[in-house]
Structures are given as structure tokens and as C-alpha cells.
């Protein structure tokens, strides 16, 4: 499965990438929202994991763009910091499928990805 990960914190990005690769997924990574938008068009990922606060373009804009695309529905998992409940609600309103709050366990993320990919 091809997964796009958009996260601006290098350690988190690398950890998520390695964890998902360990699970056998193909992973595309980006550290900013603008590049994530380009990667969505170019790579057509099967699942997107995006941070909310990112340079150039936020996670919410990415969700908005993906949901505006016609055709298949790409599952989206949102990464948010503690205390961003309002933003998470907005993400769900825009069409996010799941969310995970930082600090989080990479193992938990892996399970959530499995769950979403099985139900998709």
C-alpha cells in the first residue's frame, strides 16, 4: 500500500516512515503542505497521514483538497497536538477518517493504519 506522510518534525517523519516501511508499506514523505499537495497529484497514495500545523499549507487544506478530488476516497489520518480538539473537529468535518494525538506511539499509528486499510 502506498502511504503519503506529511509532517514537519524530522524525527517524527522519519519514525513514521520507518514504522510503516517495517509493516511493508511503500512510503512517500514530505515536510510541508505545499509539497504534499503536489505528491498527492503525482503519486496518488492509498492513504494519507498528515500533521495539522505545517509550513506553506496546513493539514486542513490537504484534507479539503483530497475530498474535493473526484473518484476514489483516500483515507486520511490526522496528527494533532494535545489541546487542538477544535481543529480535530474541523478536520473531521472536512472529511478526515481518524486522528491521533501527539505524543503518540508509532505502534498505535501502525494499528490504526491497518484498521483503516482493512476497512477501506
Amino acid at each position, binding site marked *: 500500500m502506498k502511504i503519503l506522510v506529511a509532517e514537519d518534525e524530522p*524525527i517524527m517523519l*522519519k*519514525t513514521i516512515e520507518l514504522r510503516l516501511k*517495517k509493516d511493508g508499506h511503500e512510503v512517500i514523505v514530505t515536510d510541508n503542505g505545499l509539497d504534499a499537495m503536489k505528491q498527492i497529484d503525482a503519486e496518488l497514495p492509498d492513504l494519507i497521514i498528515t500533521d495539522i500545523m505545517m509550513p506553506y499549507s496546513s493539514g486542513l487544506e490537504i484534507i479539503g483538497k483530497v475530498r474535493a478530488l473526484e473518484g476514489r476516497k483516500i483515507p486520511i489520518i490526522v496528527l494533532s497536538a494535545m489541546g487542538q480538539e477544535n481543529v480535530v473537529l474541523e478536520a473531521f468535518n472536512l472529511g478526515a477518517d481518524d486522528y491521533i494525538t501527539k505524543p503518540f*506511539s508509532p505502534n498505535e499509528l501502525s494499528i490504526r493504519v491497518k484498521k483503516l486499510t482493512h476497512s477501506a
Partner: protein
Amino acid sequence: MSPLNYFLYTVGPFQFVELMYLFISIIVLVVGFIAFYLFYRARRTARKMQLRLLYSEHISMLAICEGEQELQETIYDIHAQLKQQGLTEDEQGRGVLIKELVTAAKSMSGAAKENISAFYRAAGLDQITLSQLKSGAWHVKSRSIQTLSHLGQKQHIAKIYRHTNNRNELIRSEARVAVVKLTGFQGLRFLDVITYPLTEWEQLCLVHELSENHLPDFKHIPDWLHSDNDSVVEFALRLVESYRILELHGDVAFCLAHGQSSIRKKAVQAVRSINQPQTAPLLATQLLREEEDVQLVVLEAMGEVGSENDLAVLWPFLAHPRTVFKIAAARAIRNSHPYGMAMLRQRVDMEVHPWYILIPQLEEEVNA
């Protein structure tokens, strides 16, 4: 004669040229120093970025380790690589590594966080942080306390604990939050001995830390409610309120007679949160003997827990000169009796300010 003219008359042309050379040399030296400093800083920043990238790879490997054997092998590999690259003895390298480990530990939880802490200990980085803890600079000390707590270094708790009553507010604040982060309610034993106060911000941080996966242990709270340190009493009341500790009703009631009005206000809020049959009469008695600013808090509490037996103490407040008291008393009366609203309408003159506004507002609150 002006100083400039005096200078021009007394300095000859040759001396003037010499002085010019001196100025030019100074300017060249200053510009050279700035250029060298900027170059040095850019090189240091570039190296820092390079190190961050390298460490993020290592830390991520650690974070995804599953099982003790894989973790030990990864720790060994990373340590060997760092040694080979000469980074174990490099001061800047170690500093960046500790910072990156803290960043990762703050963003991760569960096994990933434990793996990162295990590496920090195995690499002997905790000893570097402990040496920084002995520093005379408050910011270095505070940062080292933060590092130890974020990386879950429980084995060094005694060294952090001794700073919980440090004369520097920022150091003791970090230490207090750190011991609670590491050991939960057990860490609160510093409340038995501290002489410096707990600030409002510290209290909020401590309650926040306690709410995160720490099993509650309330056995010391009665002692803190009787502490000589007012801020400790305030914090203990905050705990009673947050955790709704019904068993401590008697101890909280004792605080209603405290000398400080701020403590009595907190005690009223706490006793309201652990409402029991004796709470309403207790508040009614308190209302009669309190000063104005506490009376308002008591009236608000009676709006939640008051009973019809307490109406007699509430009626006089409808004639209070301040509207805010009128509202609080009216709300308490409305909530204390099934016919409270009807009784209010009979008692007040609906044509008079502020009742012609307040009564419809109170009725609307019931309907909402």
C-alpha cells in the same frame, strides 16, 4: 576653542596620517572579526543541521524497536557508529543528541518513549545532564531538570527532589513539576516540607501532570489541608475539587475558618464540588460571617447546593446594593426551592430596576 579645532591645531599632518592608519586598521580588524564570527556560526549551524539529520535517523530506529533484544542490538549499533564518527566525545554533538532525544520523547509515548529513555541511559548521557544540574547558572539547571523528567530518569529523582525548595523560583518550579511527572502523586511529598509558595501556574501544571496516567493516592491530602504554607492548602483544596474526594469533607470544612480569604474562597468551591447533606447548612452559616468578596462565592455555591432550609439567609441579599449579589442570591433562591421562582416574583418589585430585567433573565435560564 572647540575640541575639534584644538585637535586640528595640535595634531600635525604626519600624526594625522598615522591616526588614519590606526583607524583603518581597527576597522579592518572589526570587519575581519565579524566575518570570522559569521563564518564560524554558519559552519556551526550547518553542522548542527547535519547532526540533527543523522540523529533523527538513529532515534527513529530506536523508536520502532520491538522487544528487548532488538532494542539492545540497536543501542549497541548506534553507540558503535557514534563512537566511530567521534561523536561520543564531541561536546556539540552530545548537546544536539540530548536535545533531539528530548524532542522525540516529548512527541512519542509508550514503548517508543521507553526505548529512547533506555538509549539515553545506556549512552551515559544522563551523567552529562547530571553534571549540568550542578551548574551555577539557573537556566542550565532548569534545562537539565527538564531533560531528566522528559526522558523518564526516575533513578535520579533524589537529585531533582532537593531542588523543589530551591530559592530560585524557576528552578524549584521545574523540579516540582518534574518529580510529579516522574512519580505521580508520590512525588507530591515535597508539599510536606516546602517553605516557598506554589504559584498558580505551578498548581495548574501539577494538576495537569497528575491527570496523565498516574494512579490517585489521597492519603497525604488531609495533612496538606492543615499546612502552614497557604499555597499548599490552596493546592490541596484544588486536588479535592479536581478529584471530588468526598471523604475529606470535614477537613475542607476546617479550611472555611482559614485566616486567608483566598483560601476560604477555594474551600467554598471545594466543598461545593463534594456536596453532601451537611454542605448547604455549612455554607449558610459561612455566608453570615464572611466578608463581601467571599460572600459572593458562597452565594454562587448555594446556587448549586442550597436547600429550602437556607432561604432565610438568602432573602436579605436581594436588597444588597450591588447587582451582582442580587443576581447570585436570586439564582440561589430559584434553585433552592421548587417554587423558588414564584417566591422571587412575589418578593421583589418587578417594576423596579434591576428586577424587571433580572426576573425574565432568570426565567429564561430555567427554560434553557
